[in-house]
């Protein structure tokens, strides 16, 4: 197998390339090039849905004389961005040894506000006070952006005399389970700004060119020539990411954490496959888990066949010959190997 897996492009060179065009505390914009769209999309998906963060998950309301329903407030609290620095040291509650939650798997926040003046009062994220033994001084603290005058997101308003008193338990989670755990607030993902690949079909009234504003990356790529033929072999290979955060994780950390999550996935799969092979002294006798094998003997197992196999003892594909590829006799071309159809 002498090929370079890094060379994701046909006109390969030095593998994937990254160029950052903008980076600050809120966003990072970068171009991933010389990579395949499947990988770029994996990165996008993993950043969106699988980076662990912390968010309020349980709310115990002691007193609520506001006009808002308890569950309405609880929902809003869940969506308040909390600082996720040091999240890797926090345990998932479901993996923790404790009964329901503890300092190893949660952060406690309390909120107590009463409107004593004669003006309506705002209850904001800053009023959420973390308590208890925390993993570090910032994990679970509400994110307060400068733009909000140090107050943070508005949770609710109180009229004179009204009161809210509650305790929140913030837990570790991922956005796959609930969007409140999303690490980025949004991810921009685009490729092929001139739509040369025709992956998009632009709606228009009279002229798509006039009605659709050009992408900010339009200048980065060669526009199509007048009368240029459609390239049937072209594939996208430059991807423009715009990773934006609400502040719980810095934008560049979202990217590195995202890659880390893919790595962890792959590592766990490699580990599992090792177990599947289960020390069958190297030869191809039964790379499957013991419980699957059911104590049977070897590869072609006993009666656990697919609906397509007639005989109980052979695979649906081969004639039990083991080594031949099922496509050896298909319309796809002669003798499997050699003709390089794929």
């Amino acid at each position: 197998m002498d090929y370079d897996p890094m060379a994701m492009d046909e006109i390969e060179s030095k593998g994937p390339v990254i160029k950052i065009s903008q980076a600050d505390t809120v966003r990072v914009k970068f171009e991933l090039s010389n990579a395949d769209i499947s990988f770029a999309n994996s990165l996008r998906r993993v950043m969106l849905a699988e980076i662990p963060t912390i968010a309020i998950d349980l709310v115990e309301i002691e007193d609520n004389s506001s006009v808002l329903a308890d569950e309405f407030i609880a929902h809003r609290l869940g969506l308040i961005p909390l600082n996720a620095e040091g999240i890797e040291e926090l345990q998932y509650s479901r993996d923790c040894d404790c009964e329901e939650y503890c300092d190893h798997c949660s952060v406690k926040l309390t909120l107590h506000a009463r409107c004593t003046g004669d003006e309506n009062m705002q209850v904001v994220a800053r009023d959420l006070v973390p308590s208890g033994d925390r993993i570090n001084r910032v994990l679970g603290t509400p994110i307060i952006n400068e733009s909000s005058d140090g107050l943070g997101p508005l949770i609710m308003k109180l009229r004179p005399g009204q009161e809210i008193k509650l305790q929140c338990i913030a837990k570790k989670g991922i956005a796959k389970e609930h969007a409140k755990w999303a690490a980025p607030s949004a991810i921009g993902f685009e490729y092929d700004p001139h739509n040369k690949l025709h992956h998009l079909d632009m709606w228009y009234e009279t002229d798509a060119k006039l009605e659709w504003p050009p992408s900010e990356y339009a200048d980065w790529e060669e526009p199509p020539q007048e009368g240029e033929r459609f390239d049937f072999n072209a594939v996208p290979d430059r991807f423009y990411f715009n990773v934006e955060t609400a502040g719980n994780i810095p934008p560049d950390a979202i990217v590195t954490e995202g890659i880390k999550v893919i790595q962890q996935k792959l590592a766990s799969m490699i580990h599992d496959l090792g177990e599947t092979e289960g020390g069958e002294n190297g030869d191809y006798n039964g790379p499957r888990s013991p419980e699957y094998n059911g104590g049977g003997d070897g590869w072609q197992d006993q009666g656990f066949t697919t609906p397509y196999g007639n005989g109980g003892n052979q695979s649906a594909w081969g004639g039990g010959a083991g080594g031949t590829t099922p496509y050896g006799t298909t319309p796809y071309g002669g003798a499997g190997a050699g003709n390089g159809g794929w």
Partner: protein
Amino acid sequence: MAKSKSRTEAPQDASEDVVMQELPTSHQPDVQDDASMAEVDAEDDAEVEDEEEIEDDTQRVRLLPGSTPTAASFEFLNEGHTLGNALRYIIMKNPDVEFCAYAIPHPSEPKMNVRIQTYEGTTAIEALQKGLKDLQDVCDVVSDKFVAAQKDFKKKSISS
């Protein structure tokens, strides 16, 4: 019709129900068939036996029945397009691999199937392992390149 023999503890009726519903009549008699079977086959397998792997949450990859050394279907639990598509791509890059595809047989089951068929000289499992490792290498490179790009960017923004 050609019925599948089911395993002793597998609920017979349930498994055969599925088979009967899903099996297109034209597919019944012959075994040597066309490529469209690859997916149908894998899908049926996933549904025929379902219970056992759910209780075991540590083992997330499984070889599906009907596999041979050079042509195998794998079932991944709790994985989806995120891993599936990238894995499919990188495995297809391997010149020893004749065919690789992935499918999510049913949207409400957290399962993803990968079909791998190789030429002689390697096995589907080896191809899968190699694919996973190659993808790890790609991640390593992208990660390194990103960190390098960050440094570059900082340098540039300071000097400008």
